[in-house]
């Protein structure tokens, strides 16, 4: 793989590669072709693809004029937190499944995937505080509001449905992926058309 080949790939390629590899590893683990620890190590290894994903995203941002020093710091912070999350979750699941941890140690282990999530929230807060480009900051704040609206709305809806035994129990950690989904959708909605060439073509 040359740098040129890598640099030609867009974010969609890397997202597809990560999802494809994760699905393949999950399939191998489900069919008992590989054991649990091997699956966790392989899944954690796919985290290495987050770096080319981040770089391809940054190249898109630079081309479309949506980059800033704060955006680059945010990308690196999120990459580090995501890698820590994958590793922390893998280690925590492996330790509890394979070694049957319990008591105080289990409380400590449970924090392994939680702390990187706290780090992601902090990275987002720092981005909003650091971003000097007021329109990009406006987009980030509104996107976060969109994510928050989806989390609050869905959690309330699901919580009451669950209360009346209409739906199965949903784990609380779902809030972060739902927040990220709401944020991403809101950002896409608000920024659609922003990257289009100027009407005068320059």
């Amino acid at each position, binding site marked *: 793989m040359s740098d040129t080949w890598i640099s030609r790939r867009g974010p969609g390629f890397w997202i597809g590669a990560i999802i494809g590899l994760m699905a393949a590893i999950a399939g191998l683990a489900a069919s008992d072709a590989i054991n649990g620890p091997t699956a966790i190590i392989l899944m954690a290894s796919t985290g290495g693809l987050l770096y080319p994903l981040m770089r391809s995203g940054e190249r898109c941002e630079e081309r479309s004029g949506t980059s800033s020093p704060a955006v680059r710091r945010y990308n690196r912070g999120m990459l580090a937190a995501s890698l820590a999350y994958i590793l922390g979750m893998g280690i925590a699941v492996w330790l509890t499944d394979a070694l049957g941890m319990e008591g105080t140690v289990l409380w400590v282990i449970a924090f392994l995937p939680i702390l990187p999530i706290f780090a992601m929230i902090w990275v987002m807060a720092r981005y909003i505080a650091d971003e000097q480009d007021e*329109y990009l900051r406006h987009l980030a704040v509104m996107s976060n509001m969109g994510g928050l609206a989806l989390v609050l709305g869905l959690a309330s809806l699901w919580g009451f449905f669950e209360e009346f035994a209409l739906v199965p129990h949903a784990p609380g950690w779902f809030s972060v992926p739902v927040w990220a989904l709401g944020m991403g959708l809101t950002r896409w909605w608000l920024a659609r058309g*922003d990257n289009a060439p*100027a009407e005068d073509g320059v």
Partner: protein
Amino acid sequence: MNNRLRVLRAERKWSQQDLADRLEVSRQSVNAIETGKYDPSLPLAFRIADVFGLTIEEIFLRDEG
């Protein structure tokens, strides 16, 4: 709020990126302001006015009605 950014840029043969570089903002911001999608803060409006050597009122126009 309407504005004359596109005309003023064209008069100076500046691209959106040229203006963004002068204002130290992203091209996305210039595009959003130029198309009326986003109204800049007063400090940024003053910076835009300074870059063009005009007053804010000569660049940004009230919505009619």
